[in-house]
C-alpha cells in the first residue's frame, strides 16, 4: 500500500554512482537540469538522453523501478504535453476542430516538453535512489556551509531536514498501522464521495498527529540528554572527501552542459 511508493526512496547497490560524493551528485544534477533547459534541438536532447542512459546503466538499478516511480506524476506529465499540443501557435496546421488547432510545431513542442519532464524527473530520482537521505543532507550542509558567514543557520536547517527525512518512513509505517487497526474495526477508506472519504480519514489523522507530537517530544529529550547544542564545534563521524571519480564525474557533467550550450548557440 503506502509502502509501495518508490518516489524519493533509496535503493542500495554497490555501483559507482552510489559511491560518488553526495556533493558531486547534487552539483551534477544542477548542471544536468541546466543543460536540460538549454537543450532546444533533437541533437541536444539525444545527448541528454544518452547521458541519462549512461547514469542509469552505471547505477545498476532496474529501469522498471524508475518507471514505477514516474507513475504518480503521469497526470502532470500528460496534462502538460496535451496543453502544449493544443495551444502552440504554428503555421503547419494538421487538424483543426472548432478553435483548437493541432500544428506541427505543437507536436514538436509537446514532444520536447514530454521528454524534458520525464528526463528531469528521472534524473532527480537518480539522486535520491542512489544516495541515502542522511548522506544527502550531509552533502547539502557542506555545500551551503559558506552561507554560515552571513548567519544562515545551515547546520540547524540540515538537522531539521535530516530529522524530517528520517521520520518519513516511521510515519508512513505508523499510518499503515493505524489504518489497519481502524480497518479492523470496520473503517472504510475506499468507498463514498470526497467528503465521506475525508471524514473517514479522521480516525487515522488524530492518532497520527498525537503520535508525531509524542515522538518529537521524545526525540527532543533524547537529544538534550546527550547534550546536543547545535552545530558549533561539532565533528562528524563520516567526513566527506572528494575522490578522483568525483572530479571526473563533474568534468563529464560540465562537458555535457558546454556541448548543449554550444549546440544551442550554433542552432543545431
Amino acid at each position: 500500500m503506502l509502502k509501495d511508493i518508490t518516489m524519493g526512496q533509496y535503493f542500495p547497490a554497490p555501483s559507482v554512482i552510489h559511491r560518488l560524493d553526495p556533493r558531486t551528485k547534487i552539483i551534477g544534477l544542477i548542471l544536468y537540469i541546466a543543460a536540460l533547459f538549454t537543450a532546444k534541438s533533437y541533437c541536444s536532447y539525444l545527448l541528454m538522453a544518452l547521458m541519462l542512459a549512461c547514469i542509469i546503466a552505471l547505477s545498476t538499478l532496474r529501469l522498471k523501478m524508475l518507471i514505477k516511480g514516474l507513475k504518480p506524476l503521469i497526470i502532470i506529465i500528460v496534462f502538460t504535453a496535451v496543453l502544449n499540443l493544443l495551444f502552440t501557435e504554428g503555421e503547419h496546421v494538421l487538424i483543426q476542430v472548432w478553435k483548437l488547432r493541432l500544428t506541427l510545431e505543437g507536436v514538436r513542442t509537446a514532444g520536447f516538453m514530454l521528454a524534458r519532464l520525464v528526463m528531469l524527473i528521472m534524473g532527480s530520482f537518480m539522486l535520491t535512489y542512489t544516495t541515502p537521505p542522511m548522506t544527502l543532507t550531509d552533502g547539502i550542509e557542506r555545500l551551503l556551509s559558506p552561507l554560515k558567514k552571513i548567519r544562515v543557520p545551515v547546520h540547524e536547517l540540515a538537522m531539521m531536514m535530516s530529522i524530517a527525512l528520517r521520520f518519513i518512513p516511521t510515519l508512513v509505517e505508523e499510518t499503515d498501522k493505524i489504518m489497519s487497526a481502524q480497518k479492523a474495526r470496520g473503517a472504510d477508506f475506499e468507498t463514498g464521495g470526497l467528503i465521506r472519504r475525508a471524514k473517514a480519514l479522521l480516525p487515522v489523522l488524530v492518532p497520527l498527529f498525537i503520535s508525531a507530537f509524542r515522538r518529537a517530544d521524545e526525540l527532543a529529550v533524547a537529544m538534550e540528554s546527550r547534550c546536543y547544542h547545535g552545530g558549533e564545534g561539532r565533528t562528524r563521524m563520516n567526513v566527506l572527501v572528494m575522490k578522483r571519480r568525483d572530479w571526473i564525474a563533474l568534468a563529464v557533467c560540465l562537458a555535457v552542459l558546454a556541448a548543449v550550450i554550444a549546440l544551442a548557440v550554433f542552432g543545431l
Partner: protein
Amino acid sequence: MKPIISTENLTHVYSMGTPFEHTAIRDVCFEAYAGEYLCVIGHTGSGKSTFIQHLNGLLKPTSGVVRFEGEDIHKSKAFTRDVRFRVGLVFQYPEYQLFEETCYKDIAFGPKNMGLAKEEIDRRVHMAAAMANLDEELLARQPFDLSGGQKRRVAIAGVMAMQPSVLILDEPTAGLDPDSRAEVMRNVENYRRTMNACVIMVSHSMEDAARNADRLFVFHDGRLEITGAPAEVFRHSKELQDMGLTVPLAAQVAMGLRARGLPLPEDIYTNGQLIEALLAVKGGEPDA
C-alpha cells in the same frame, strides 16, 4: 467439529519484485475452533504479526487460502468486510489508535461501522465496558486522560464491542505493569467464556502461554515449526531455546536437572508439575 478459522499453505511475500522482497510467512497450515484459547509464539520477525493480519483479511495471501467457517474470506468484498467484524483484531499498543473525544464514542466506532441500530450500539458499548472492567463513569471521559492500563482496556473494549467470534490480540500486555497485565488477561478470559469465542493471543511471555493456552503455535523464520498442547510443545524445550525463545522457568530447571542425571519426565512446564516430579523422585510426601 468444523474449525471456525483455518489457513491452508498460507504464504506472504512483501514488496514482490523489488530489492526489498521478503517472504514473511511460508506454507502455514492452521486450524482454530470455537472456545479455544490459542497462543502464537515467536521472536521479532518470525512472521506472527503478518500471520494474524491474514486472519481478518487485512493482508491478502500471496498464495494459499484463509477460511472462515469453511469459506474463503476473499471470495467477495462484502464477505471480507463481514469477516472483519467477526474476527476481531487488537493490534500492539492499541491505545495509540484511540481518536474520539470520549471513551464511549471510541468503543462505539466498531459497532457503528457495522451499521447497527442506536440501541444495539449502546447495549454493546456497555457490555464491552463491563467485559473490560471499565467503570461507567469512565465512558464519558476523554481517552487521553486515562492511565496506560485503562487506555489499553478501552481499546480492547472497542474490539470486543463488535462481539467477534474470534478475538486476536497482538501482545496485549506489552508495556503494562503486573496489575494491569493480570487485569487484561482476566478480561480476555472473561470474554472467551461468555461468548464461547476463540481467542488467539500473540505473546512473548512463555509463562503466560504455558498457563493459559489450550494449544501453542511456534513461529520461526516464517514457518509454523511446532504446534500442540503446552505439554507437547515444551517437550521441545531444547529446540525452542535454539530458536532464541525462552521456555518457562520450570521447564528450564527440569531440563538442567535431567542433564545432570535426574530421571524427570520431559513434559514439565509449570512449577506445580516440577514440585510433584521432584517429590516423586525423592520418594517422599510433601511436608508443608
